[in-house]
């Protein structure tokens, strides 16, 4: 194994240019794929922050006694998918409305009594923030006799869920396409390397070298090229990220969200992925070359 590793290093030294071309090809492919991943990670984060805003408003019937309200709070809190329940009394709601409509304060002067109902503001766990589950939950809340009306932005939630699913599906499809493109480009580059060394391979065969002996350093080279290509691609992405992120954050409402770089786990995953690309591209090229 050590001997094969030394042969691979020697081969890289002997064919610096071709190896550099392969590493640069992998680096560019990884740069494209990881830039895409970075975009999706951040877009996902923004969407998740929007999803946290999904809430159900439960309006109670007039004159519901306090004991019933406390009992209802307890029951709702014990339901699946509930993260937080806040009781908003009709007075509290009225004061809040007044605050929001300061310029139209004259409207409230003629009111003889508070027209707003007591209500609950319910926030959901992330796993329950989809249309189907919200609908089920709303139906259950409506079944309580003290509940007059349940509101959860049905149309908006439906559109949002569809958009998010489409977004996620597009992400997977694009990621898959870029992965395939990277794989084919690298396999082609390695095939060119093999083609340029076909005489050498033929000579090795003629002197009695087995196919596995000939292939071993190519595989090691594939792994090294993949890993180096991945590191260079991610380094280029990081530099681009530093240059763009600050100006982007200034451009969009500051403090609304933070643009993040890939997590250490994703970073390691991409390096492993690029190493795998190097190996599998090598495998495909060698398989065809040794047919």
């Amino acid at each position, binding site marked *: 194994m050590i*001997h094969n590793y030394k*042969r691979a290093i*020697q081969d890289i030294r*002997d*064919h610096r240019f071709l190896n550099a071309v392969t590493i640069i090809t992998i680096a560019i492919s990884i740069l494209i794929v990881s830039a895409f991943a970075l975009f999706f990670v951040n877009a996902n984060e923004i969407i998740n922050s929007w999803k946290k805003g999904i809430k159900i408003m439960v309006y109670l019937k007039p004159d519901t006694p306090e004991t019933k309200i406390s009992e209802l709070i307890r029951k709702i809190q014990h339901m699946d998918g509930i993260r937080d329940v806040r009781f908003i009394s009709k007075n509290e709601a009225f004061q809040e409305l007044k605050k929001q409509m300061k310029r139209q304060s004259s409207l409230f002067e003629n009111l003889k009594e508070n027209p707003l109902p007591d209500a609950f503001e319910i926030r959901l766990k992330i796993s329950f923030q989809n249309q189907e589950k919200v609908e089920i939950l709303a139906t259950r809340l409506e079944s309580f006799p003290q509940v007059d009306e349940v509101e959860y932005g049905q149309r908006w939630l439906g559109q949002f869920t569809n958009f998010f699913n489409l977004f996620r599906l597009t992400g997977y499809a694009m990621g898959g396409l870029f992965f395939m493109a990277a794989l084919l480009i690298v396999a082609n580059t390695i095939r060119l390397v093999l083609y340029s060394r076909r*005489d*050498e391979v*033929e*000579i*090795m*065969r*003629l*002197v*009695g*070298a*087995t*196919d596995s*002996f000939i292939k071993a350093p190519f595989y090691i080279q594939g792994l090294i090229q993949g890993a180096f290509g991945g590191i260079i691609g991610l380094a280029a992405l990081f530099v681009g990220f530093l240059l763009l992120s600050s100006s982007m954050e200034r451009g969009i409402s500051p403090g609304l969200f933070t643009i993040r770089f890939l997590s250490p786990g994703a970073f390691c995953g991409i390096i492993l992925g690029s190493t795998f690309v190097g190996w599998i591209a090598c495998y495909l090229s060698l398989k065809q070359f040794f047919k």
Partner: protein
Amino acid sequence: MIDGQNKSSIIRLFHVHKNYGAKKALANITLDISKNELLFISGPSGAGKTTLLKLLYLGEEVSEGQVLIEGINLSRISHNRIPFLRRKFGIIFQDYKLIPTKTVFNNVAIVLEATGKKRRFIEKKVKSILRTVGMEETLHSLPPSLSGGEQQRIAFARAVVGDPKIILADEPTGNLDEVSADIILELLKRFHTRGATVIIATHDKELIRKTGGRVIHLNQGYMQKTINV
């Protein structure tokens, strides 16, 4: 008869034909080559000399007939066993077939590396064989920096470093001046004396006259005559 083996024969050919499309390269060759024999395959260009050598190390497959190497029928050998068959041979090619990007040492060492020999053994053996062919000074040189005669001596060193039972030489002196050709010839004789079976394909009658041995003459793929010089 085909699966049996004459004890003194190392190579046997039975009614061997080789065609390239409609062109007949070899026709009905039947031949026994004994252990430690020195055999010349002579004939003009295009007679089928190189093709005959290629059939022995499976550089080409026969179109018809059987080739046996030490009793192994090459028509029945599995793909995985071909490298092991080739290790029985030391092959000297007319165009040397050295790897231009590898040093002389690495070009010769490759044969031993392929058989999994230890690094220390490889260094010792390669240096020793390069001393034998008078090329120990070129250890770190690249083949393109050497003359044709020097490259042929490196190719010879590579052919014999694995102590092969059979040495195949295809026009070994074809591109060389008289001095370099004599050196190669002497080396071939020396390894023949040490016990190797040596098969030389050549059209050089002077080389055959100087060396002596059995000569088979090919013409347009047919074996015309066998003589002892």
